[in-house]
């Protein structure tokens, strides 16, 4: 059937054309409306962004306040103080500022809420995250600690241990040598040929211990600010290392040869080997002496006195010659002591403290603006 032969075709055709044009027009209207909405939302985002940023500053200021800082200091990890500024509004937007305690320092979370202006019941959220760190919060008390660690502890020659010996494997001594332990001995496995002096106890099949972890990033930040950072393997020979804040950070292995004096501590990514004469002075209270993040610590040369904890979190500690330690020897794997060693820890209790250092005096905000979260991001 040929429609053009029918009466009224012009009207039908006109209606069809009008319909198409109407659809096109509605599409255009929709595009324009969306554009207006998007512009309004973008403006809201900017308002919320600035409000959240302002709230972050309020949070940071609150954390640094002496009285607030004392509150934060005693919080346990993960606990939150919510909405520390109940009346805070910026750009006409309510801002909520929360404080979240972390292992070292705190996170500050500032969240700005607002409804968009077009009457839609949708919330725009900008969150600003800041981080205030306290690099000394994780440092052991230099006079606490223990000998041992994640696996076996072996003591082969004479020694005086004014501390506890504990590990997750076996504790092995040699009964023909004079090994005096003025603390307790406990092992997740067996205790062989070694016994504590009077008053001490032996415990076999003891509960596994948690080998403490250090916050190596904090030490790197400290070294990067006022200490010394080496970006690869280092052989120190006939040198005095005297960083302003006592922290030397080496991104690799460390070998000490000749005569080396260290005023502070060495934190190495890999192995630490002492083959020469090594003199160490603790310059900051509670600071450790030697930390290896991924490797072993070998003290091969006859030494003097080291003050502070020596920790090899992922590896072994070997002591081959005479040393005196004013601190603990803690390894993620084995501790092996092959010659006369004296550990002078007044308190024989195997305690360690994460409360070393003054929290309030050491708070820094250096990375605190890296954590802006866009709407929909939380």
């Amino acid at each position, binding site marked *: 059937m040929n429609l053009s*032969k029918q009466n009224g075709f*012009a*009207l039908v*055709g*006109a209606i069809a*054309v*009008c319909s198409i*044009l*109407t659809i*096109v*027009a509605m599409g*255009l*209207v929709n*595009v*324009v409306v969306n*554009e*207006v909405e*998007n*512009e309004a939302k*973008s*403006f809201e985002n*900017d*308002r919320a962004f*600035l*409000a959240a*940023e*302002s709230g972050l*500053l*309020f949070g*940071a*200021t*609150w954390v*640094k*306040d002496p*009285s*607030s800082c004392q*509150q934060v200091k005693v919080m346990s990890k993960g606990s939150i*103080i919510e*909405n*520390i*500024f*109940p*009346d*805070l509004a*910026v*750009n006409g937007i309510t801002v909520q500022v929360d404080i979240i305690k972390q292992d070292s320092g705190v996170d500050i979370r500032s969240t700005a809420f607002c409804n968009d202006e077009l009457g839609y019941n949708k919330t725009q959220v900008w969150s600003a995250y800041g981080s205030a760190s306290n690099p000394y919060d994780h440092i052991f008390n230099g006079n606490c600690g223990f000998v041992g660690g994640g696996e076996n502890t072996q003591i082969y020659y004479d020694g005086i241990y004014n501390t506890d010996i504990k590990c997750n494997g076996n504790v092995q001594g040699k009964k023909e040598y004079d090994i005096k332990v003025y603390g307790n001995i406990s092992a997740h496995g067996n205790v062989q040929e070694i016994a504590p002096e009077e008053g001490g106890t032996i415990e076999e099949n003891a509960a596994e211990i948690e080998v403490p972890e250090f916050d190596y990033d904090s030490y790197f930040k400290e070294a990067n600010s006022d200490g010394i950072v080496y970006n690869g393997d280092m052989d120190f020979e006939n040198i005095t290392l005297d960083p302003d804040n006592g922290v030397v950070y080496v991104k690799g292995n460390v070998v000490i040869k000749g005569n080396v004096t260290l005023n502070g501590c060495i934190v190495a990514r890999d192995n630490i080997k002492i083959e020469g004469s090594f003199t160490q002075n603790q310059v900051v209270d509670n600071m450790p002496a030697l930390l290896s993040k991924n490797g072993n610590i070998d003290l091969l040369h006859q030494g003097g006195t080291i003050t502070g904890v020596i920790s090899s979190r992922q590896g072994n500690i070997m002591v081959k010659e005479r040393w005196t330690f004013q601190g603990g020897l803690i390894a993620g794997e084995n501790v092996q002591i092959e010659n006369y060693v004296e550990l002078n820890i007044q308190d024989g209790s195997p305690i360690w403290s994460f409360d070393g250092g003054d929290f309030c005096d050491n708070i820094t*905000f250096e990375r605190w603006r890296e954590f802006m979260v866009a709407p929909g991001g939380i």
Partner: protein
Amino acid sequence: MKTKVRTITCNNKGFTLVELLVASTIAILCISSIVTMLIRSREIETGDRYRRYARALVISELEDSKYHHTQYTTLKTSVGTTTKNVIIDTRGNYDDIQGTMTVSIGAEDVRTSSDGVDFNFVPISVTISWSTTDGNDSITLTKTITRII
């Protein structure tokens, strides 16, 4: 051959004048509406673009180092308003869309924390206003600065 020509002529009667007038009127109305809408759409799009550019200028100003928290002491003694001209959109030699940026540093104020401690802050508002053939427009954004000890 003659018969065929005659048949075609008889079937092609054409539109009546009324039909043509109605169709033309509807078409004119539709086309003029769409053209109007296109023009308006372009105006809105242009206005939105100016607002986007203006917002970028405001954010940029607020992020300037002179409004950093380390400058708090200076800011709190700088209460007042400063004005300067800004170019919102560059279109040609004499067709730039120009606006006025007004920075207002407010008087030091106080917010009290939930544990009862007062904390001072300084509010900073930046406004950009401009005029086009379509009318006047402006945007304002505010942030606050506190002092980290």
